[in-house]
């Protein structure tokens, strides 16, 4: 009885092992790889204006608006001056094209009469952008469209020349929305072959 059971298990085991070998060791002429996986040469970073925190403040009495920016300027308001900016670095080994979009507009972020919401791009390290698509070192309104603004179509990856800075400026009307206001920026990098 026991011998029969051993024999039965041995046969089953041999059959199963044969199946395993046949299906796994490619004796059937089956090609090894049929599914292609490509890593898309694009990345998207989302970051909040919270990273740049202007803190609490108000427009000076009798003034129609206040202007604050990340270059340390505060005009007609009592905010604490800040100089924190966004730094975008190309850490990889390929040149990039960089796009930037905001989540809000001046009106949706600040509200009130004639609000302003601007950004300014600079080469944080010299010659980081080899082909500027917008004027650098000057304020321009944020762009909240899906594609945003193309800042630079050729951002270098050279270690000493691979970073841009983005400063922000807000023109806050005296009748603006009150409370904590936040926004999310999206930077998209596309590899340039």
């Amino acid at each position, binding site marked *: 009885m026991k011998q029969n059971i051993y024999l039965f298990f041995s046969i089953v085991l041999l059959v199963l092992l044969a199946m395993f070998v046949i*299906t796994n060791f490619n004796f059937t002429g089956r090609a090894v790889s*049929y599914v*292609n996986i490509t890593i*898309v040469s*694009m990345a*998207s*970073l989302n*970051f909040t204006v919270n990273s740049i925190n202007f803190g609490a403040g108000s427009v000076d009495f009798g003034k129609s608006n206040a202007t604050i920016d990340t270059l340390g300027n505060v005009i007609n308001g009592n905010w604490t001056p800040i100089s924190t900016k966004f730094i975008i*670095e*190309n850490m990889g080994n390929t040149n990039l094209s960089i796009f930037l979009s905001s989540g809000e507009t001046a009106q949706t972020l600040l509200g009130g009469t004639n609000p302003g919401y601007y950004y300014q791009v600079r080469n944080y390290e010299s010659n980081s952008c080899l082909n500027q698509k917008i004027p650098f070192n000057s304020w321009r309104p944020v762009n909240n469209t899906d594609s945003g603004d193309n800042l630079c179509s050729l951002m270098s990856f050279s270690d000493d020349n691979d970073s841009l800075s983005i400063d922000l400026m807000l023109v806050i009307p005296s009748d603006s929305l009150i409370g904590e206001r936040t926004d999310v920026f999206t930077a998209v990098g596309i590899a340039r072959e």
Partner: protein
Amino acid sequence: MGETNNMKKSKFENNLLAFSGILFIILLLFIIFNSWNILEKKEIPANFIIGERLGFDLNSSALTFGMLPPGASSSRAIEITNDFNREVFVSIYSSRSIIKFTRISENDFYLAPGETRSVSFIVYTEKNSTFGQYNGFIKIIIKKNSGVFLK
């Protein structure tokens, strides 16, 4: 009396042997089914850095999410094309070291022959995330069908 005991003992041993054998076969069948069911396994290295700046790293052989400050997110995508002449089932896993930061746009789906699907990976960091480099991998399993699978 002694002979009866011996018979009982022998019957018990036979039953035990049969039971063990059945368990053994079930286990073997399970392992073989799983290995038979898998057509391909691919592992892609993945990493990101939580730091003060924003950084892009568009490596084409790895899912490098670059550098992101606490509270920020970074996304990259892969395209999967089925060149088999049959439908396949795709499952995607991320390693433990990065799983809590990673979201996958879609998972566990069928791909028709010739079909290409784009899958996005998004790394989210918390506002109190610890600075440092996080390394892991994304594993893509191509199966004949959606059956049970041992990772």
